[in-house]
């Protein structure tokens, strides 16, 4: 066996990264493995970025418990890790009397969950707070502790802080099977070799069911991916009056199609929720686009199709696990457990919404579970909970910008015109504790290529920078890892051409 760890975490999405970060506080050898070419490429990079107040989850479920614990942790964790976060409050908007009844239910549910400060407001009040809201709104639920964050930065920040504190991260490393001794897990077999461990944490998101089944755990648990499509609007053309999330009244399908501000300055519309058969099916569909667009227009009639600049879809890891409390009739709850049928597994499953909100709380729960299983968790004396965010040029004032460029000239070269992203930031991402080694990884970290021209200007430049920094030919630069090359060959390297000239007469 090549190497042995105390804990191996499968999956470097927001949950796995938060688990790694919280566990890194203790004297444990930790390995975080991720099958993709970068962290956070799954659900963590395709969601609404909401940090939910907690009125939506059914009281007593794991979802509710971790949502409530999580939303209370976000102010501090975002400061410690340098994650953009704004507790701006959110609204659930009613258009009919039936909707108002649902809002009352949400209010009660929220109170039962311990959500502070909620209030039902009138249509008139709603229109005052957000003049762009549909004019016939008859009321709304206001939740001041709801907020928005930046899931891309959050995942990177948590994972980087873990690395700073000694966690090993291995990308392009896919879990394949458990190594077992009887019914005790002794390690994992991956695409990059075998690793021993005493504990495995299953944070595999969409694939958590496949992972746990390999250990014979919960054979009836199944993740059925539900796709959510999103549209992003041009920040120069479309702005809400203040940062917030506007939810419609929820239905059995879920929280519904929202219109929200993002902390990158855009307005986002979406998501819908449709089951797909394939855990890699993140296709945009024309029906889906129409669906989310009409949902968006219902909330904010003034949104204009001409202002759409980006589209993407994410997959929710929707499971079928019952809530731990048998009194509660709910079958789509989070799994957060140490199962009994095997030894050495901390099992997390079905982490869909409010998973992002709950992620730091889930991490805390994992620590508790390990402690209650007899793990002696000795704190590292030099554990550093602080991860400094790297400089973000466009967020600095003129004076700070001038100083930064004087110190590091690479920050004086703008590579992404639309979002004002500098070469300095790109280099910082390539040389970060968890390096960004392809175009999309840089895009997630720096926000380049997400603006109006969608990478049209920056891509040739980023390819050159990546090639130079990684010491590879430009043809080996990929969009998102193996199998996604951007360029095929040099212009003049032709094996076989297909030039045929036709006589026109």
């Amino acid at each position, binding site marked *: 066996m090549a190497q042995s760890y105390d804990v191996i975490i499968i999956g470097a999405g927001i949950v796995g990264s938060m688990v790694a970060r919280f566990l890194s506080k203790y004297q444990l050898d930790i390995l975080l493995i991720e099958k993709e070419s970068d962290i956070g490429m799954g659900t963590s990079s395709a969601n609404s970025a909401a940090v939910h107040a907690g009125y939506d989850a059914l009281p007593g479920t794991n979802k509710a418990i971790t949502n409530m614990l999580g939303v209370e942790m976000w102010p501090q964790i975002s400061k410690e890790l340098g994650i953009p976060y704004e507790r701006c409050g959110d609204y659930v908007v009613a258009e009919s009397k039936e909707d108002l009844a649902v809002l009352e239910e949400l209010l009660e549910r929220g109170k039962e969950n311990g959500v502070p400060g909620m209030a039902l407001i009138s249509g008139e009040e709603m229109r005052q707070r957000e003049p762009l809201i549909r004019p016939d709104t008859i009321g709304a639920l206001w939740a001041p502790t709801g907020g928005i964050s930046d899931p891309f930065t959050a995942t990177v920040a948590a994972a980087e802080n873990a690395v700073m504190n000694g966690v090993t991260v291995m990308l392009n490393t896919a879990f394949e099977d458990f190594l077992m001794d009887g019914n005790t897990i002794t390690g994992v077999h991956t695409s990059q070799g075998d690793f021993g461990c005493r504990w495995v944490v299953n944070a595999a998101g969409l694939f958590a069911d496949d992972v746990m089944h390999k250990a014979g755990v919960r054979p009836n648990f199944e993740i059925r991916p539900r796709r959510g499509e999103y549209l992003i609007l041009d920040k*120069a053309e479309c702005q809400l009056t203040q940062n917030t999330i506007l939810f419609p009244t929820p239905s059995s399908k879920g929280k519904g199609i929202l219109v929200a501000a993002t902390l990158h300055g855009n307005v986002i519309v979406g998501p819908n929720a449709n089951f797909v058969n394939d855990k*890699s099916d*993140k*296709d*945009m*569909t*024309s029906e889906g*686009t129409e669906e989310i667009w009409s949902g968006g227009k219902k909330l904010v009639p003034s949104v204009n199709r001409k202002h*759409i*600049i*980006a*589209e*993407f879809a994410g997959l929710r890891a929707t499971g079928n696990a019952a809530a731990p409390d048998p009194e509660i009739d709910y079958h789509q709850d989070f799994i957060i457990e140490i199962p009994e049928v095997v030894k050495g597994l901390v099992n997390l499953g079905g982490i869909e919404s409010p998973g992002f909100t709950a992620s730091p709380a889930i991490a805390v729960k994992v620590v508790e579970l390990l402690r209650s299983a007899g793990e002696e968790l000795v704190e590292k004396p030099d554990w550093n909970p602080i991860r400094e965010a790297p400089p973000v040029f466009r967020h600095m004032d*003129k004076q700070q*910008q*001038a100083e930064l*460029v004087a110190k590091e*000239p*690479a920050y*004086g*070269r*703008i590579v992404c*015109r639309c979002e004002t992203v500098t*070469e300095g930031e790109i280099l910082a991402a390539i040389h970060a504790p968890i390096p960004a080694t392809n175009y999309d990884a840089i895009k997630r970290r720096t926000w380049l290529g997400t603006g*109006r*021209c*969608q*990478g*049209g*200007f920056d*891509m*040739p430049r980023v*390819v*050159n920078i990546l090639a130079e920094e990684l010491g590879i030919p*430009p043809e080996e630069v*990929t*969009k*998102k*890892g*193996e*199998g*996604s*090359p*951007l*360029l*095929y*060959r*040099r*212009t*003049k390297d*032709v*094996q*076989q*051409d*297909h*030039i*045929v*000239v*036709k006589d*026109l007469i």
Partner: protein
Amino acid sequence: MKSNYDVIIIGSGPGGLAAAIAARENGADDVLIIERDIELGGILLQCIHNGFGLQLFNEDMPGPTYAQYYIDKVKDHGVETLMDTMVLDITPQREVFAINKDLGYLDLQAKAIVLAMGCRERTRAQILLPGARPAGVYTAGTAQRFVNVEGHMPGNKFVILGSGDIGMIMARRLTIEGAEVERVLEIMPYLTGLTRNYVQCLLDYGITLQKHRTVNRIIGRDRVEAIEAVTVDEKWQPVPGTKEIIPCDTLLLSVGLIPENELSKKAGVLLDPVTNGPFVDDRFMTNVPGIFAAGNVVQVYDLVDWVTEAGFTAGKGAAQFALSEKLETGEEIPLIAGENIRYVVPHKLDKSHLAEEQVRLQMRAIVPIEDRVLVTVEDQNGEVVAKKGEAYARPGEILTLAIKPKAYEAIQKATSLTVNVRKR
């Protein structure tokens, strides 16, 4: 490097180069071009095909050659140039904030500014193309940059969406450099680029163009594997039973250009929603005093020669403004898009200018007329003050008409001028 300039020009494509030359020739002493790329020339540097200079030089030059002619002139005229530099902000008071690796943060003051930032390309997201988001989806211009300047082929087997000139030019270019161009799809029932390009880029090389067809879906998770083509009706709705999977590894989008006016907006420049460029008068001055605009940033041109001419006009106006702190204006009247005209540039005309020089109007037709047409400029009473016969009117080809000084008397009583194009 100074901190005060008479004229600062943003962009060194044909519009910016011409403006710089004209500014110097009309008395501006300190003229600066700020260019975000590492060399002057703008988009012309990657347009390596012939077709440039037919109007102004009676020659058929490649883009880079046309550019170099003006780049050499800019150098001869003692214009200062700053390259690899991005303008971050401009104010209505004509302060220019730019950033550069070596010089750091620049805070410059201009007496006049010429905006010449050109266009960006319409993206996949803006046309809401369904399907996965693999590597291998490029706008034609970005692909052109890779193939012609950076020296890389973005793929082996291409489908091109859009029969605009960039798409057709790239079809030929890719073929010459050994790639396969499987199909060109055009959603409209007619060609949107020049017939000459259809013949010399597609027919010559046996590349199939299909009209009424578009991409229904992109297939391939990590890299493009195929596109699903479909026929559409006049409302752009898919026609059942017409889907076709076309295996390929690259999809090139040639679906339109959008003038790049983010900086303009920051300076309070008002944009025409039809052109997506600034409202300009016949000196190409915007609504903000002292801020001019020339080239593709104003409207999407089809002939570079007219861009150069516009740049000369804007540069001259900028120099005059810089020297006098204002421009003498006579009575200004609006130029209105009339029958079958989508837009007219410039948007208004200073009557007194016609005393000395002609004013060139540029228009686009809405609906094609494949027959002899008459373009007329009529005043508010329907009196024709200028007219021009053309062999046809096509939306993809700009109509141009110069109002000559001889029309000076005729327009003195006009309160507005409307441009129309009708079948003769």
